[in-house]
């Protein structure tokens, strides 16, 4: 029973991580789109984004720890930390490690945003668009439950949600109200030094 408990926890925590990460990505896109209504201030979007991101890491940690300490998986800590080093489903599990490490970089840099400055922080944050699909693939490839109805439904819903969010983002154009004006001014004053 304890053995199965760890195994169910790993799989459950994995599913929850996927759902939470999907919500986080969605909220990140809502932040950029400056979505707002009288009952939904922008600091709610950013606050939820931050809190759910931290919760995601908690469930991700649970997912990783339970999978490693489970005696039946024969996974050592190395497998969890070094991508593509496991014996079990090397490739698909390796994707999970990659996704985890990308997310770790994103979260750590976000916590240190004040020290890093906006530009460096933003460059790393773009990796979200890699971390999420890699995590989804890991779940599909490694997951024991992939073909079960509930996991299929969850995965499909998450992919749909992020798909819609990205579509809206791409069709929204620039979110910076000064973008066009700034660009046209810069072309007007961009010259080269001459001798």
């Amino acid at each position, binding site marked *: 029973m304890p053995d199965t408990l760890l195994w169910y926890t790993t799989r459950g925590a994995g599913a929850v991580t996927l759902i939470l990460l999907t919500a986080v990505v969605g909220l990140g896109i809502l932040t950029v789109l400056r979505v707002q209504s009288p009952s939904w201030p*922008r*600091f709610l979007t950013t606050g939820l984004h931050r809190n759910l991101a931290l919760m995601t890491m908690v469930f991700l940690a649970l997912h990783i720890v339970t999978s490693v300490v489970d005696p039946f998986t024969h996974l050592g800590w190395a497998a969890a930390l070094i991508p593509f080093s496991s014996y079990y489903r090397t490739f698909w599990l390796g994707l999970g490690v990659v996704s985890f490490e990308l997310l770790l970089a994103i979260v750590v840099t976000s916590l240190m945003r004040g020290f890093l400055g906006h530009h460096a922080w933003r460059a790393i944050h773009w990796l979200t668009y890699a971390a999420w699909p890699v995590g989804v693939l890991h779940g599909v490839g490694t997951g024991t439950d992939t073909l079960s109805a509930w996991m299929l439904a969850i995965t499909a819903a998450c992919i749909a949600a992020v798909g819609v969010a990205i579509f809206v983002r791409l069709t929204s154009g620039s979110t910076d*109200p000064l973008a066009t004006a700034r660009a046209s001014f810069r072309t007007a004053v961009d010259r080269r030094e001459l001798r």
Partner: protein
Amino acid sequence: MSPQHRLVVDRIKCDGRGLCAELLPELIRLDDWGYPIVNSESVPVHLLPLAQRAVEDCPVLAIALRRSQVKK
């Protein structure tokens, strides 16, 4: 002498996101185009936590709390 804090906006980085005004309407209001008009006097002590939150929540790190020593 006691440390006073003032809110300072980097006007070039500021993008008119408006989170600062949502969090701290006592000191920040938005102009007709969505950009913050900040009360440049010292932040009252009871509002400092919210001011700190406004600084952290700004998506482009355009607002900061500067310390200034003021003789009382």
